[in-house]
């Protein structure tokens, strides 16, 4: 065990608004509906404004592709942070345990694969805010969507249309010292279904010689799940907890063969990230 693996006693860092408070009056119900409408319009307006005024301007001003990638990612991180704080004003709250990792107990995240479970629509918003320089895999359709095309291209994220190229590119980026955010379950958890973790994250980490840094995400009450109508108002103010767990080194698992090792490592990740959903 390295020092980084013994960080579980780190006290929770509280950010955003204080914890959830029940709101069950009529006024509360209207506030929650307003929350749902505001979160969606806020995100949509923010995305639209940035798609028109921020990312194309950045792409014009910063010609060097490497520098452009850094600036775009940093900007996405800041915009996502601003969106979360905006939602904080409306009652969204969160606890960060062991995060952000820079300067925290888990050490630097550079060269790591950050793996998280995926309960809600805004998990990636949290992770790209907390790990602003990170690479992530983005649905290939976003390369052709006018709202997102400029940003995902300039940020140099990885499209998911060709598994072989994705695997290769992910390993290369990590070996060059990059950080990669992955959701091993691929898509959000469907209420009532046990998510199936796929082996890709463990394989990418093993081939790149990179550590896995699991981040467990819980949201209480659950909101923005797969299949939830967006206007569904939560029964209480939603409260997120994001917790960095001790790192895992794939080489400890793959001594007797990569395939069997990554299968077991993936099972372990699934246990770590899906346990204690309270």
């Amino acid at each position, binding site marked *: 065990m390295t020092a980084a693996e013994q960080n579980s006693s780190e006290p929770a860092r509280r950010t955003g608004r204080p914890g959830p408070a029940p709101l069950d009056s009529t006024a509360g119900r209207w506030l929650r509906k307003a929350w749902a409408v505001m979160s969606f319009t806020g995100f949509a307006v923010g995305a639209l404004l940035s798609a028109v005024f921020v990312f194309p301007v950045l792409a014009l001003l910063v010609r060097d592709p490497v520098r452009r990638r850094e600036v775009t990612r940093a900007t996405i991180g800041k915009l996502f942070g601003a969106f979360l704080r905006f939602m904080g004003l409306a009652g969204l709250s969160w606890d960060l345990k062991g995060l952000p990792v820079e300067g925290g107990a888990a050490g630097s995240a550079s060269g790591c694969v950050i793996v998280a479970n995926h309960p809600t629509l805004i998990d990636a918003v949290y992770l790209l805010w907390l790990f602003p320089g990170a690479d992530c895999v983005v649905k290939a359709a976003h390369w052709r969507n006018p709202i997102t095309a400029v940003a995902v291209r300039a940020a140099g994220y990885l499209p998911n249309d*060709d*598994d*072989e190229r994705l*695997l290769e590119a992910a390993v290369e980026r990590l070996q060059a010292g990059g950080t990669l955010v992955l959701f091993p379950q691929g898509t959000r958890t469907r209420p009532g279904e046990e998510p199936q973790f*796929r*082996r*890709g994250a463990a*394989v990418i980490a093993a081939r790149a010689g990179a550590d896995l840094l699991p981040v467990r995400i819980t949201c209480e009450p659950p909101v923005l799940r797969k299949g939830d109508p967006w206007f569904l108002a939560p029964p209480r103010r939603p409260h997120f907890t994001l917790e960095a767990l001790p790192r895992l080194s794939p080489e400890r698992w793959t001594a007797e*063969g990569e*395939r*069997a090792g*990554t299968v077991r490592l993936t099972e372990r990740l699934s246990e770590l990230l899906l346990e204690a959903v309270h």
Partner: protein
Amino acid sequence: MNTDIDSYQYVRNLLVDQFDVPADAIRPEALLADDLGIDSIDAVDMIVHMREVTGERITPERFRQVRTVQDVVDIVDRVLA
């Protein structure tokens, strides 16, 4: 046909040696995912192996049609033909 037997042997050896598939589970009609536990990463690795042997890139679109062991054998045959 002789080449057909060779292709089948090649695919069978590949599955046993590289993908931890028990030899007695392999039949031409066996389903790669459901019967033999081949996942999407294995599919990528199979494409890479097959390219090393055949010298041709098998596109992911083409490989996505593959369901059974025989489907893989057919692709190898077509590439080598």
